[in-house]
């Protein structure tokens, strides 16, 4: 996850299952700390109403990239609710798989955290190059907000504009 691929790429949230953290249409850009060699960290530039994302740092950690298999492409001209049911389900399955693997320290990802209200949400970013059948990149943002209230956890995802 420390390849140049996720860097300086503007990502748009296409679907959101993390209320209070991200809204559809928000954008995230990951700025590497250096362009000379592999970056040690990425700083987030964010547009949207959840300004606590701005300036947060994410570190490439883990070893093994998670495997995903998207069978449909997201239609960026339609809202999440207007996607074909099978397409949205396909992306939700992929997101759920990432959520299950996000606590495995071996899994490669960008790891950081954001302060939300009076506690931290642990955030894992997964970036996939040309993961969609149409060749578009895809990324997923996984949140571990609270240990005892899993309904507050979730995964949002999106792709470049």
């Amino acid at each position, binding site marked *: 996850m420390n390849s140049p691929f996720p860097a300086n790429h503007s990502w748009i949230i296409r679907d959101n299952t993390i209320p209070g953290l991200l809204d559809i249409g928000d954008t995230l850009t990951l700025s590497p*700390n250096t362009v000379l060699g592999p970056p*040690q*960290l990425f*700083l987030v530039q964010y547009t949207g109403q959840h300004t606590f994302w701005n300036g947060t*740092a994410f*570190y490439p*950690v*883990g*070893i093994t990239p998670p495997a995903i298999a998207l069978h449909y492409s997201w239609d960026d001209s339609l809202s999440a609710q207007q996607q074909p049911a099978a397409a949205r389900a396909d992306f939700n399955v992929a997101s759920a798989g990432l959520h299950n693997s996000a606590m495995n*320290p*071996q899994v490669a990802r960008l*790891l950081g*955290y954001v*302060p939300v209200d*009076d*506690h*931290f*949400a*642990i955030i894992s970013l997964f970036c996939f190059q040309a993961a969609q059948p149409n060749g578009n990149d895809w990324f997923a943002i996984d949140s*571990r907000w*609270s*240990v*005892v*209230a899993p309904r507050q956890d979730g995964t949002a995802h999106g792709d470049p504009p």
Partner: protein
Amino acid sequence: MNSNWWWNKQWVIRDNGPLARLFDPDDTLVLEPNTADDIPLFFWIRFDNKDPKKSACWKDRYVYAVGVTPPATSLVYSWDDTKPCDQQAPGVREHYNGMVNRVRSTAENPFTARLEGHIPVDSHWEIIRFFCFQGAQPNGRDWITVDALQKNPAPGVHDISNPKLLEDGTGHGDPPH
């Protein structure tokens, strides 16, 4: 933090400061690399706590080496490991607390080199950071600080009436004799 002198080394907590909910003096920990065959990419936290409730916070948790620049320390006194934290020579504990706070003040800088992870405490996650310093004490002994961040206080706000702010803090220790 990507050298290996602090791996698989036993550390003893000498002062738990405001982190009594996480460990006690004389608890021990080892940072165990995930592999012995290659450069480790993360480290298991092997905390041996006397209190099983505190052990539960550390069980199967891990940290990653992140950041770039090691924080600076300049300890003038050595910790007397034969005495508890509240019986150190006058000024020693205060000196260590000052250094702990100095390290802590750099910990929010993303470039600061550290071991970072998160642990479940009660119903929330706390951000945990370890800083290991080789030969940092005047007597040549190593030193470790353990920093916990439960929540981010708003910049410039230090309301001591807010108990949540008081739960953040740093403990420290060094190797056993």
